[in-house]
């Protein structure tokens, strides 16, 4: 176990090193700190003097070591736009993104488990086929498009008058397809509860939850088909195994078999994949936050790109890289702990 731990952690450190080199290369290649600091009127000699003083003429390796040393101490430079430390800017935006991810994860867990289990127990039922069909189509819909459709349906609203309004069924059909709209589709709302530090939460007010609704459904929609299919496939495999057959022979109730015995073993691979997917969700938060103008780190990153705010871009890369590396390492470690059959060390097959 110790060898496994050391191996995984050293690998994580290596990946973080590569990310920091890339981040340093971006900062070095794109940003000219001098331009931000001095005006046009400063002479060439003075510029050279400042360059020398700032250490910009030092060898690359020395400059990188300084960058990495500062980064480890939590100093990733100042944002050009916000004119304060980049990590502070990220800390202000991070809670919004985290709440979005939490909201989406809740939706995913509460929908994918029942649907996946149901369609594994009754693969031939029309409802299962319907869910599978929807999930095939769902995979083909990009997240920003789901978001736009949701905005059209539930925020702007749709009035349908395709069916003849003078008949009862026509009016009924029109009513069925007409949506009210009115849900907020912009930002997080005003009623946020201050929790601690920079964390302003939207979970405790109706307005906050309403604002959270459409963005988290959109973000969940991209992962939901994948999880439903995964749970279904794993569950179907588990249901074939001997111990389930013995449980049936023993006369246990089907509810107990499905939800106590089978689900336990189904969730093991699901949790590993899920852990990795939550990291991947960060990429999709950029898209979701852009559509809903959600003030999280994704939108902040995109705005940093349009403003050429290089230090903020670099800091975002480092922070997101760190989040990815930590989640992946944790998932690996947890999997190693939970599943004793996994080969801990040694070469990968």
């Amino acid at each position, binding site marked *: 176990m110790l060898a496994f731990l050391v191996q995984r952690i050293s690998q994580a450190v290596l990946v973080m090193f590569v990310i920091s080199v890339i981040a340093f290369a971006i900062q070095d290649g*794109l940003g000219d700190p001098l331009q931000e600091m001095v005006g046009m009127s400063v002479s060439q000699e003075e510029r050279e003097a400042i360059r020398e003083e700032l250490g910009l003429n030092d060898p690359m390796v020395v400059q990188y070591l300084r960058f990495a040393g500062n980064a480890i101490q939590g100093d990733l430079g100042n944002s050009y736009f916000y004119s304060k430390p980049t990590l502070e800017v990220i800390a202000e935006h991070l809670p919004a993104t985290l709440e979005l991810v939490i909201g989406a994860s809740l939706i995913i867990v509460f929908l994918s488990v029942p649907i996946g289990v149901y369609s594994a127990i009754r693969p031939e039922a029309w409802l299962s086929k319907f869910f599978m069909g929807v999930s095939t189509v769902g995979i*083909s*819909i990009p997240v*920003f*498009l789901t978001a736009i459709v949701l905005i059209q349906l539930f925020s*702007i609203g749709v009035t349908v008058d395709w069916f003849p309004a003078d008949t009862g069924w026509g009016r009924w059909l029109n009513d069925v397809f007409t949506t009210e709209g009115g849900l907020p589709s912009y930002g997080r709302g005003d009623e946020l509860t201050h929790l601690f530090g920079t964390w302003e939460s939207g979970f405790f007010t109706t307005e906050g939850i309403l604002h959270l609704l459409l963005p988290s459904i959109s973000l969940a929609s991209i992962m939901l088909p994948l999880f439903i299919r995964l749970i279904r496939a794993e569950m179907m495999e588990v249901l074939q195994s001997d111990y389930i057959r013995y449980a049936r022979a023993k006369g246990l109730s089907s509810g107990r078999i499905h939800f106590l015995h089978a689900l336990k073993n189904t969730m093991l691979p699901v949790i590993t994949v899920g852990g990795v997917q939550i*990291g991947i969700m960060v990429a999709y938060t950029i898209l979701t936050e852009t559509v809903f103008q959600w003030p999280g780190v994704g939108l902040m990153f995109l705005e940093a790109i*349009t403003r050429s705010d290089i230090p903020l871009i670099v800091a975002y*890369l480092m922070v997101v890289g760190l989040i990815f590396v930590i989640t992946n390492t944790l998932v690996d470690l947890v999997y190693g702990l939970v599943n004793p059959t996994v080969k801990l060390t040694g070469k990968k097959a």
Partner: protein
Amino acid sequence: MTTATVSRWDRFRESFFWYSFKRDKVAIASFAVLLLMVLGAVFAPLLAPTDPYDLAQINIMNSELPPVGMSGADTAFPLGTDAQGRDLLSTILYGTRVSLMIGFGAVVLQAALGILFGLLAGYLGGKVDAILMRIADVQLSFSTLMVAIIVGAVFKASFGNLMFGEIAIYMLIFIIGVAEWPQIARTVRASVLAEKKKEYVDAAKVMGFGTPRIMFRHILPNTLSPIFVIATVQIANAIISEAALSFLGLGMPETQPSLGSLIKSGFDYIQSGSWWITLIPGLVLVVLVLVINLLGDWLRDVMNPRLYKG
């Protein structure tokens, strides 16, 4: 020459491939829709009522006209117009063209990279394998979209808006190709590992052929069918990635729109009630991706029922 082509055609007609295609309604329908869209895209300059790249043909007075069937529509613009007064049907035809070009181009690039690295990793093994696959693992754990967004962001920041707009097609092909190569490399590596144990490889070694020749002339042809399957699905992924990048403003400029940038430019007007500018290109994008995915599913079942779904 003629006899050769005839016999090849006959062989195709008697193949399992054609047989299963004829019996699968979903595959036939998907293929028909895809063919229609590809033809529409290829012949866009002939089919489109107007040329959206030509500023002289655009009249701002025609902006935000709804599609035919709604009040205020103009029959000259069957799908309505966008905020700049461009005919939506024409921009969609041209946009599909751009999206398909980037999709195909990106997959060709990632296939080239993936085949090369996959062959090297699988056949040479050892350190080469360990290093290449570790890079692939790390890149995949970051998700290809994230890698594409970051590379796109860096390119945009270093080239500037104007310059980036001009070479956007090549940039996007490069970005998506580089971001997605691990998918194909892994598939190739897995089949190479299985192939290299076979006798024909030993025979080729005994005959004294060089490593590159064995890799590319002997092993590669035997790994083509899984590559083909995964490449089909990857085209759909590349089109989605392109749309996502364009939607974020890291892709095609509005003057030379892809489906993604059409959705983006329409999104700004959705609150004013002009839903068609964003939702019609969106629908086209979903249909395009869906039929490619369905064809990919079918191909996977035909070519290798045991292949892992990527």
